[in-house]
């Protein structure tokens, strides 16, 4: 799968550090525009906190809306990082190398963004310190650890801390590299950050062994995070469409689906923006698309199961809910778009190698997937709450307000903004992994055929 390309290391350094050593022309304008959007978002959030949640479109019985949907969406995106860097590292997939760091980065930043939403969606955000910093004795009351809303922050902060440390450890050799390439205050900064990296066998061994060990440790966290998020919904026995035992793996695999797609989107952007055609190559997109086909189909199976067992009970409210979700305006339109974008359009396209190796097409299909996956979360959360059960005396459908939409857009601008800021100081493609793959791949002649081969260390 991985064609062997001889790449001189000096060239590799120059190309992959072009973000840090010299600023691309487009960088400053883009960042400033994004900064403006972010600023607007912050102002809107401030006004909402100041005025109260009346400015949102929430109404009984739909008490959770766009914010929680977007929260789940970003937590889902965050599952890209460990999926790519941990699972593919453990399965020794060679093509992961250029992607890993960008994916982990996406994890960190999307988690940071996701954490904002539960905060601002609460009625009295300034009091949420009570459950983020639970143990102030002065308040004299501990949080209720039986509540899934306590498990959420615990799980997400665990995941965030873990991936941040993971990111930093994998960054060490490249920081050393940057230290060697820079001068002045930058050099000083990188010298401190790289902790005096030299690259002797002991340090490299720690990189490999530690990397794999960390992956193995992050993997269970990765699975647990979205499961716990899903239990926020699944434990509510009174909400048809939420109270399903399949939610945990269903959410996790959906998260992987959207996360890996987001990575594809990002890779395409990186390739275009920084002109990394030598490093992010069609075969990487090809491999990711193959992975995506499997993941998406698995996700479809879970969706099917979820639906089957929703109707399995054959209770009137459940059936009424599904009827609304699929056949009533506007939900039916959303449902159709969701299904088309999340599966029906992209996956059949990915079956063709021509599509898989076409960066532009991959870019757009991956964006489609994420539109669909966002809609999926929306279609689970909101129609579930707009119940069709007895004693619901308001059949008010929920319509998000402009404020909510602004904050929704803000979240995307915010993540991109952080990404670009990071890219100014740290390489987005792990240089040492890139070079390692050069060292570890050789061509073997079998008969007349030249076949790419990988050096596996004997264990």
């Amino acid at each position, binding site marked *: 799968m991985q064609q062997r390309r001889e790449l001189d290391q000096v060239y590799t350094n120059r190309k992959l550090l072009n973000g840090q050593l010299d600023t691309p022309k487009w960088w400053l304008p883009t960042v400033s525009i994004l900064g403006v959007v972010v600023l607007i978002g912050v102002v809107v959030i401030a006004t909402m906190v100041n005025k*109260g949640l009346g400015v949102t479109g929430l109404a*009984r019985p739909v008490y959770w809306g766009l914010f929680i949907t977007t929260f789940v969406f970003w937590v889902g995106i965050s599952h890209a990082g460990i999926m790519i860097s941990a699972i593919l590292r453990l399965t020794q997939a060679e093509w992961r190398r250029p992607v890993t760091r960008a994916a982990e980065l996406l994890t960190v930043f999307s988690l940071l963004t996701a954490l904002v939403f539960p905060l601002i969606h609460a009625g009295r955000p300034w009091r949420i310190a009570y459950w983020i910093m639970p143990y102030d004795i002065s308040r004299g009351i501990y949080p209720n650890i039986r*509540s*899934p809303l306590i498990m959420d922050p615990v799980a997400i902060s665990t995941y965030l801390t873990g991936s941040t440390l993971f990111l930093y450890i994998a960054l060490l050799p490249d920081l050393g590299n940057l230290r060697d390439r820079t001068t002045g205050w930058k050099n000083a900064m990188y010298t401190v950050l790289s902790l005096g990296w030299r690259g002797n066998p002991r340090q490299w061994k720690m990189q490999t062994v530690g990397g794999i060990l960390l992956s193995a440790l992050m993997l269970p966290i990765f699975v647990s995070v979205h499961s716990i998020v899903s239990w926020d919904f699944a*434990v509510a026995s009174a909400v048809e469409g939420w109270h399903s035992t399949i939610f945990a793996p269903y959410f996790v695999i959906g998260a992987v689906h959207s996360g890996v797609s987001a990575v594809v989107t990002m890779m395409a952007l990186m390739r275009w923006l920084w002109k990394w055609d030598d490093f992010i190559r069609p075969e990487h997109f090809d491999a990711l698309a193959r992975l995506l086909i499997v993941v998406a189909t698995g996700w479809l199976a879970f969706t099917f199961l979820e639906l089957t067992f929703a109707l399995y009970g054959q209770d009137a409210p459940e059936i009424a809910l599904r009827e609304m979700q699929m056949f009533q305006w506007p939900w039916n339109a959303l449902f159709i778009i969701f299904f088309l974008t999340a599966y029906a359009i992209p996956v059949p396209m990915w079956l063709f190698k021509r599509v898989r190796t076409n960066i532009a097409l991959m870019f757009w299909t991956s964006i489609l997937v994420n539109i669909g996956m966002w809609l999926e979360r929306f279609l689970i959360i909101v129609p579930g709450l707009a119940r069709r059960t*007895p*004693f619901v*005396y308001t059949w*008010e459908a929920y319509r998000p307000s402009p404020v909510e939409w602004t904050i929704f857009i803000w979240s995307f601008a915010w993540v991109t903004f952080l990404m670009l800021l990071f890219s100014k100081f740290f390489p987005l493609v792990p240089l040492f992994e890139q070079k390692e793959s050069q060292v570890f791949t050789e061509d073997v002649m079998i008969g007349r055929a030249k076949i790419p081969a990988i050096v596996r260390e004997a264990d």
Partner: protein
Amino acid sequence: MTTAEFGTHNWGMVVDVDKCIGCNACVIACQAENNIPINTQDRVERARSISWIRVERYWEGDFPDAKARFIPIMCQHCENAPCEPVCPVYATYHNSEGLNVQVYNRCVGTRYCANGCPYIVRFFNYWEPVWPESLRNHLNPDVTVRSRGIMEKCSFCVHRIRRESRNARSAGVEIADGAVQTACSSACPTSALNFGNFNDPDSKVSKMKDDKRHYTLLDQFGTDPNVIYLAKIDADKKISAGEAATHG
């Protein structure tokens, strides 16, 4: 585990649907007693109105022989309340007198409890409550005025319970049966709403709740409510609005 068995009191209500005439006196009484913000037309249209108790009306049969059925619904104070365990800050929990209490000061407004509640009797304050100048002095001093951003719901007029228990303690006697009346029950002209202590076997409600007409709402959720309904007796057919709704 339920708290009712180790408390001396287990407050509860018996609603005789047969007696309810749908006059909405209970609703008005509740609004006045508990400082509930005025439900303006806008709030009602936006489904943001707050009414701790409501009288639901169902039509049975078709015109001309259509019958109106009424059923008052307030917080059921469930023993296995779905709203309680999901609150991250113990803002709602079950106290030792069988009440499902809402602690306004703890609430941060995640609205998770309202998602859990199948009876839709929990309400969120979207705005700071305001009253016209003329009503400023009509607020009940015993009841907190809820600020924006928190949940509220029927409290079984807990302030009245407290007052009576204070009086009883100072007089050194047990709280007499019927001494505590919620605003709604005292306002009900047909005494369809009856409030009392289920742990006292000779109390009025304890006797009523063993009536063979008794049922609870949405029992498939296993919430074990402290509000017992007595079914409507109909001359021609034996069905009550409550059951019609329950098995709706």
